[in-house]
């Protein structure tokens, strides 16, 4: 370990101390299930907007997107841009979701359909999405912390998971929310500063920045044109669909909408999210092209195979270069922010998984008369067991696995299983319980199957001639088809009339109340 690693760890310890203090404060306010899963529904609009932005911009998004722009140029847009439209679509259903739900995605479906089957199905798909996402994030986290702070992979995973469990068991959703807010503020502050520094290098002339980036790439003109990385036009469409519609079905984002007091605050927080994410995306683009313009081809080797270290290296160069004091400090800042980001995203994913297991499966399907106390205890135990399981799985898989692949799996399942059921539950009178269960099963199964049969698993040659790396272009229509066919074949009356659901989600008459 050298001085630089020490600096990263010192800054990171500062973040941990701050968040632990907040957790201590939050722990005194986490005594009921509503407080544990939904922060007592007392989070404000701007606060929740920041927390949402914190939840959605993972270390993978932050360092991965900048790295991808650095390495392949234009094609990095397909991994980022469609999510912006996805957040806008989420924005337009945010109020309805807030009015319909209590703690989880399954609540929204169970609002009008039969409890047990839809809870089991929705909790199942939530857990699949969150587990793939969690494993991907934890692997990425371990590898990244290793590179930035000089910690061993296993040590890094154990530290990350242990801290996440601590925040959640004691602080619940309130603790998780403030961890997200602090992380989001640090991250955005850092991005703004770096963006200004990069643009200053080219006299705030973006044409000049792009020009230099292209001249410094071995790809030449192709660097600023589509087609250097994504495997053909159909994959471009498929990837765009997955990142656009999958965004609407991400469980750890949806659960945040239940932490605000009313639908109007949910709307305000979604606008904050859209603005913050738009700014983060724009700055990531500038920093990615900036990294290419400033680091050039010489930086490729140090940035690693996925380009994940392009941002910290860019920071080092902006601060004065390798070995200089300014360079060391800025490198350490990126390291600490990445560390904080990883922790915050683990926390957000784990509380979503805990809700799906404890609230939907344990208290909604297995033990229907569970008390509030029991639900709270189930939530806490789930966090501990899940955290330990994720730690063991991640250490067993090791750092070698391609995390972009696992993340795309999570988005594909979210887009194919969660998105169709969510949209139809809120808009289609003829939707039934059987339709929801069929749709979730068909969407999730087809997404997983098409990924398993894709060329990325069979090293180049799919056994069924399916040549897309992302399944969304086929599995989203299959998910919708499952919902529609299942609904048309079952004409059993549902427990709550569509009229009641439509009126209540639209007007917010009698929604889940904040804790007074």
């Amino acid at each position: 370990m050298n001085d630089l690693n020490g600096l990263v760890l010192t800054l990171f310890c500062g973040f941990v101390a701050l968040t632990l203090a907040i957790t201590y404060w939050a722990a005194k306010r986490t005594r009921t299930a509503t407080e544990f899963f939904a922060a007592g529904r007392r989070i404000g609009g701007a606060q929740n907007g920041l927390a949402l932005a914190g939840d959605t911009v993972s270390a993978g998004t932050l360092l991965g997107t900048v790295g991808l722009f650095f390495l392949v140029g234009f094609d990095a847009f397909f991994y980022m841009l469609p999510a912006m439209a996805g957040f806008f679509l989420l924005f337009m259903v945010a109020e309805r979701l807030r009015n319909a739900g209590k703690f989880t995605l399954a609540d929204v479906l169970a609002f009008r359909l039969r409890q047990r089957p839809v809870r089991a199905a929705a909790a199942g798909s939530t857990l699949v999405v969150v587990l793939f996402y969690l494993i991907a994030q934890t692997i990425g986290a371990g590898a990244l912390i290793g590179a930035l702070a000089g910690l061993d992979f296993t040590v890094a995973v154990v530290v990350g998971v242990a801290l996440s469990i601590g925040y959640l068991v004691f602080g619940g959703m309130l603790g998780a929310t403030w961890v997200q807010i602090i992380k989001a503020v640090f991250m955005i502050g850092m991005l703004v500063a770096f963006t200004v520094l990069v643009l200053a290098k080219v006299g705030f002339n973006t044409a000049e920045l792009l020009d230099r980036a292209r001249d410094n790439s071995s790809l030449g003109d192709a660097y600023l044109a589509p087609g250097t990385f994504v495997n053909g036009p159909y994959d471009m469409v498929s990837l765009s669909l997955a990142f656009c519609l999958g965004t609407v079905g991400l469980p750890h984002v949806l659960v945040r909408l239940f932490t605000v007091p009313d639908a109007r605050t949910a709307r305000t927080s979604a606008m904050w999210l859209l603005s913050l994410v738009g700014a983060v995306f724009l700055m990531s683009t500038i920093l990615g092209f900036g990294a290419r313009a400033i680091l050039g081809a010489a930086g490729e080797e140090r940035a690693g195979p996925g380009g994940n270290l392009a941002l910290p290296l860019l920071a080092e160069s902006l601060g004065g270069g390798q070995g200089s004091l300014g360079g060391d400090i800025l490198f350490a800042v990126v390291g600490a922010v990445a560390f904080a980001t990883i922790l915050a995203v683990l926390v957000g994913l784990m509380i979503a998984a805990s809700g799906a297991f404890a609230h939907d499966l344990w208290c909604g399907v297995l033990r229907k008369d569970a008390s509030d106390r029991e639900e709270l205890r189930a939530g806490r135990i789930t966090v501990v067991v899940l955290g330990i399981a994720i730690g063991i799985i991640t250490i067993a898989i090791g750092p070698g696995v391609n995390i972009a692949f696992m993340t795309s799996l999570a988005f594909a399942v979210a887009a194919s299983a969660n998105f169709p059921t969510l949209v139809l539950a809120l808009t289609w009178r003829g939707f039934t319980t059987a339709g929801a269960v069929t749709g979730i099963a068909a969407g999730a199964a087809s997404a997983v199957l098409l990924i398993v049969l894709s060329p990325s698993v069979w090293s180049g040659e799919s056994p069924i001639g399916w040549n897309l790396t992302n399944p969304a272009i086929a599995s989203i229509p299959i998910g919708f088809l499952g919902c529609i066919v299942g609904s048309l074949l079952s004409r059993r009356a549902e427990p709550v009339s569509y009229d009641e659901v439509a009126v209540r989600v639209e007007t917010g008459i009698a929604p889940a109340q904040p804790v007074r």
Partner: protein
Amino acid sequence: MSIDPQPATRPADVSTDDWRGIARSAPYQSLISQRRRIVVPFAAAAFTFVVIFAVLAGWAGATMSASLGGGWNIGLLLAVAQLAVVWLLGYGYLRYSGRVLDPLRQQVIDGVGRDEVAR
């Protein structure tokens, strides 16, 4: 408070027939038609932008890389424009919700407990 039959407390004095009554009332009908007027075109616009961007990148790469001076080309301009357009759609929806939908929503809520419910 275990799992409620409904995620929220259900107003005891509102029956299934009442909900149908509210759903058919003039204020509610005008609320959903005004909402549909903005949600459908705006959602279509955002989604279409995403799909068209991918289609152009996939099948019209030469057009997308046509230079606009400096390093800028049509594809990069469309990418930045997409961020701006989607943000503006969001801002437009926020304003419309506050100015048009919220008052209509309040009318529906005020109506409950008067004519529809008090049969």
